[in-house]
């Protein structure tokens, strides 16, 4: 009965709506579909979404590893609060994050005012999109890397040290290679989330076509113009790309399980 309920629910709520999208985009015909997908505005929106998500995921991968390391290995006052705060982006509604970041990084905002004299503009530029996506994606890397780091056996580091390795050598030759799979998984999750992100981005981005207009926003714009065909086609392209991402995540996970004996 549980299985029946699950299947019915899944079919009604997920499968039928999603197949509706596939069916609607196949209805368009290949020529029209490609015309929309390769429209310059669509292409640039996709490029901005994927580019900003990639940059943000890179930043998150770097700082996420440092942050996880600090939380796992060091003791300092307020550590428990910091650890809990890492999950804030999961709990804070994206619209709230969006208006807060836009206010902070605006030219006259708390942070923006120090950057304006340096000639750095963040709000209403692609940089703003990256900042918003760093916010949204941060917990993914930390929370995938952290449990793996906790499992690291200190004896491995001791062995490296007794064999004459310096601390830096131990970190770069012994510890980091073992952490590569969870870091990659966290990176991919943050990237996938960033590509589809909408709420936190639209307030800070400025939304200029060809410059700071993300793909999910373009879908919303097309919908508001009642251009369902274009919205469907863009969504289909995004879904296919996300699906490829999901596949890669799964591959990384099975690869890491095979190689290191644990899943990330």
């Amino acid at each position, binding site marked *: 009965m549980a299985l029946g309920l699950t299947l019915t629910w899944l079919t009604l709520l*997920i499968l039928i*709506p999603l197949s509706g999208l596939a069916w609607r985009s196949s209805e368009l015909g290949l020529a029209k579909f490609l015309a929309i997908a390769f429209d310059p505005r669509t292409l640039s929106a996709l490029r901005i979404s994927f580019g900003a998500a990639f940059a943000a995921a890179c930043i998150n991968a770097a700082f996420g590893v440092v942050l996880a390391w600090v939380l796992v290995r060091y003791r300092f006052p307020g550590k428990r609060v910091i650890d809990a705060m890492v999950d804030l982006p999961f709990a804070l509604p*994206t619209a709230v994050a969006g208006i807060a970041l836009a206010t902070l990084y605006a030219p006259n905002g708390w942070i923006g005012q120090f950057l304006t004299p340096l000639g750095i503009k963040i709000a209403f530029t692609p940089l703003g999109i990256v900042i918003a996506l760093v916010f949204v994606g941060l917990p993914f890397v930390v929370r995938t890397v952290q449990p793996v780091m906790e499992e690291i056996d200190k004896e491995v580091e001791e062995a490296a040290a007794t064999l004459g390795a310096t601390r830096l050598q131990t970190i770069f030759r012994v510890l980091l290679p073992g952490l590569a799979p969870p870091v990659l998984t966290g990176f991919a*999750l943050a990237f996938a989330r960033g590509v589809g992100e909408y709420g936190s981005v639209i307030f800070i981005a400025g939304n200029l076509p060809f410059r700071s207009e993300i793909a999910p926003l373009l*879908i919303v714009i097309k919908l508001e113009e009642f251009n369902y065909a274009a919205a469907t086609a863009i969504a289909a392209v995004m879904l296919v790309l*996300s699906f490829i991402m999901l596949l890669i995540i799964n591959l990384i996970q099975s690869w890491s399980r095979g190689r290191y004996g644990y899943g990330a």
Partner: protein
Amino acid sequence: MALDTSLQPTKVRSAVTEHRFARWTLILASLIFLTLILLLPLAAVFVEAFRKGAGAFLEALQDEETFSAIRLTLIVAGVSVPLNLIFGVAAAWAIAKFEFKGKAFLTTLIDLPFSVSPVISGLVFVLLLGANTHLGHWLSAHDIKILFAVPGLILATMFVTFPFVARELIPLMQEQGTGDEEAALSLGASGWQTFWHVTLPNIKWGLLYGVLLCNARAMGEFGAVSVVSGHIRGQTNTMPLQVEILYNEYNFTGAFAVATLLALLALVTLILKTLLEMRYSEEIAASRRH
């Protein structure tokens, strides 16, 4: 400052931890990064809301449209969270306790809403139920309003928050195995008795954890509900949508006042989540990814 008091200061120590200087550089870098990305935005919400004083803040909340947004958010979460709770338990039960073909595929399907853009999650319902579809035609002929009305908001929210409970429970139930249930059944308990008296007590903390995260997302969802809402003022605007409208009208005090309520919800969620993790960590699934 007590640093690594567990390790005695010997020469070996420098080999398995970083130099004091490196340690503090990393801690400081992390703190600065977190301040810029997480803490300042959170602080900004409260500061902006109270910029014109507590009076203006309270006045901004005394708004008919804001009231109706709060009411609507509570209704949407109040319907979609319990439904997803029932589904989540059923799905986790089916996946963890039984063997069947296509299990891996089913697990992937459950995770699917996490990897779909919220905007697309809303779009699929517009495409399915929109006025220019057969189903939409039939619905409007029978005077049933789903899209641009409360049922649509609930549907989109359910789609988005659908994996939370199941994902939390599946690893937990898999770990617990079927031994307890088999014992109960062999002693003559019925299926329901087994569920209520054996399974449910075993998973209650994990369940609460999942519901907590599900609720936070349900109340805060923006992209998906934005697409299906139609933005009818005082009728189909949830709290996050109300934040957007007020902000775009340059009513910053109003926007941030509503935002503080959502930020408080987030903080309460984080505190409860941390308490649950501290007290019942082994009874909550080890997977902490969402």
